[in-house]
């Protein structure tokens, strides 16, 4: 077992994704002015943090064989509702933070309940949830309280303890927690089994329904957290702030080597997956080309990365 550990480690898709990130960064840093500067890398990391946190829940859900299409809507709802949920009397802003996260988690719970107990396919359940939330947004968006004055959120979006953006530190904490859950807790083992063979998991008494509920709740929670971080970074929530994070959260998961069919994967791949997406977008932004060409370049880069890391034997 130990003798074969090294080659097995190297064959890990997530390591490959990390290697790709390093490669892209080195290449870009050498050829593009300003790209390799610490300030820029730090900024890219900060952007990746938002995707990475949004993709944390998505990773869990996908590993267990589901998918969450409400990530973007939950982010938007959290970013817009947080100011309204923050009582002015609370100087720390933590009450608003807690309330928003509770709300996001609650939305996730509804997703999970629909998927687990009503047996609605997750894709439909979460899509419908996103539609509901759009309706909710029409009611609440544009309310006059959208400007954020919550000190905790402002701190999160702008502070740099230890020279690192607070958002990145938050991401590190989230990453540690998620990795711990997946690889070191019984729940993590259960997730992987549920994703790989839900029938066997059910007959083995792994509590598939309850686990689903928790998973989607977690996805809601992390989407809410990402929404709060984005609110801090942009100082303003607006309808549509979360939209770009739906596809990117899924792309980060899959680029990280997690099987979209479930049962195999790790958040250790999602982390570089998120960085890779942000870096690619940044690279494309600085290339002076027409929008059509930029779109083509972005797609080709993703495809190339996919071909290089050549993963997943089925479908």
């Amino acid at each position, binding site marked *: 077992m130990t003798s074969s550990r090294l080659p097995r480690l190297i064959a890990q898709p997530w390591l490959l994704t990390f290697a790709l990130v390093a490669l892209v960064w080195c290449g870009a840093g050498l050829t593009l002015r300003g790209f390799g500067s610490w300030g820029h890398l730090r900024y890219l990391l900060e952007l990746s943090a938002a995707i990475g946190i949004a993709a944390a829940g998505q990773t869990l859900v996908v590993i267990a064989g589901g998918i969450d299409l409400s990530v973007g809507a939950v982010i938007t709802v959290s970013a817009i509702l947080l100011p309204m949920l923050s009582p002015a009397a609370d100087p720390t802003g933590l009450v608003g933070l807690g309330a928003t996260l509770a709300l996001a988690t609650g939305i996730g719970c509804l997703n999970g309940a629909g998927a687990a107990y009503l047996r609605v396919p997750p894709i439909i359940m979460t899509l419908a949830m996103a539609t509901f939330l759009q309706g909710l947004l029409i009611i609440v968006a544009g309310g006059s309280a959208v400007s954020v004055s919550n000190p905790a959120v402002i701190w999160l979006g702008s502070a740099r303890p230890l020279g690192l953006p607070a958002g990145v530190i938050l991401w590190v904490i989230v990453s540690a927690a998620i990795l711990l859950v997946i690889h070191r807790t019984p729940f993590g083992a259960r997730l992987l089994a549920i994703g790989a063979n839900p029938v066997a998991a059910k007959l083995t008494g792994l509590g598939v329904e309850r686990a689903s509920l928790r998973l989607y709740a977690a996805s809601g929670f992390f989407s809410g957290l990402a929404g709060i971080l984005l609110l801090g970074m942009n100082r303003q929530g*607006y309808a549509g702030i979360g939209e770009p994070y739906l596809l990117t959260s899924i792309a980060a998961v899959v680029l990280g080597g997690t099987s979209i069919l479930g049962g195999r994967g790790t958040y250790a791949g999602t982390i570089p997956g998120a960085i890779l997406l942000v870096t690619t977008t940044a690279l494309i932004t600085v290339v002076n080309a027409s929008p059509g060409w930029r779109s083509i370049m972005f797609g080709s880069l993703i495809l190339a990365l996919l071909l290089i890391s050549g993963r997943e034997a089925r479908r």
Partner: protein
Amino acid sequence: AANCIKGDRKAPYTVGWANIYSVPTWMKQTEGTITAEVEALKKDGRVKDLMVTDAQGNAQTQIQQIQSMIDANVDAIVVIAGSSTALDRVISDACDKGIAVVNFDSLVDTDKVTAKINTDSNEWGSKAAQWMVDQLGGKGKIIIMNGPAGVSVSDDRRKGAQPVLDANKGLEVITETNTEYNVAPAQEAMTSLLFANPEIDGVLSLGGALSAGALLAFDRQGREPVPTTGENARQFLELWKEKGINGWATMQPNWLGALAVYTAVQALDGKPVPAFVKVPLPVIDDSTIDTYLARASEFPADGYIYSAYDKALFDKLLAQ
């Protein structure tokens, strides 16, 4: 009578408001002016009902909904087009049925409408570019920020800027980008551009929340802001004031919606209305910004501070 009007429709009218997407704040504010106007017209007995649809950003759905409005035989349709060409046929169908079709903001190509109402997007772009030229003395490096590709408003503004840029070769466009009209993607793109292009003298931002995103990008990098153009987004105006930048902005007034309803009713009433109602672009600069910001609290934080409007203004615009 005006285009499309056959004179067979009697007040009070039923108005259909075919929105392309009602979630963004600009749209919500616009819808606010429309419902307010309808309420006012109801009191006058001119309008009886407002039917609202939301195509959720899907031009195909918008076609379907306008078709439903035709089927329901509404008297007027006011519409922001989800595509400058896709609605042409369904809108001409409506026109053929004698429905007053008033199109504002995002315009359609066809002329088979009662009226189109908009500011001049070309002028928008050229004015902004001209201000930038004046500001930089005709020399310097600028970045252009555009709205999404393939959308006519964004394209038209960019087109309007081009002649001015061609005439002032001293102004070097180092690069340009397209993003959604939103703060976060604009900020993200601007930050990358700033790292790649350390020397920048001006940001020619062509609308929406792009300018606020650009200012935030400068701010987060701790860099001195440069002259920036933009729109009447509250966040931009507040940042402009707060950072003390050299700024210029104009406005796509939300009350275009109210004006559209008003125009439709006028046309149905048999009054002449111009085929194109050109709404002048105001200039917001250091001399006028305070009057805008003074009313900031009346508007959503992520919204647009639009100027006041009344019937007199509408009548004046329709008398063009």
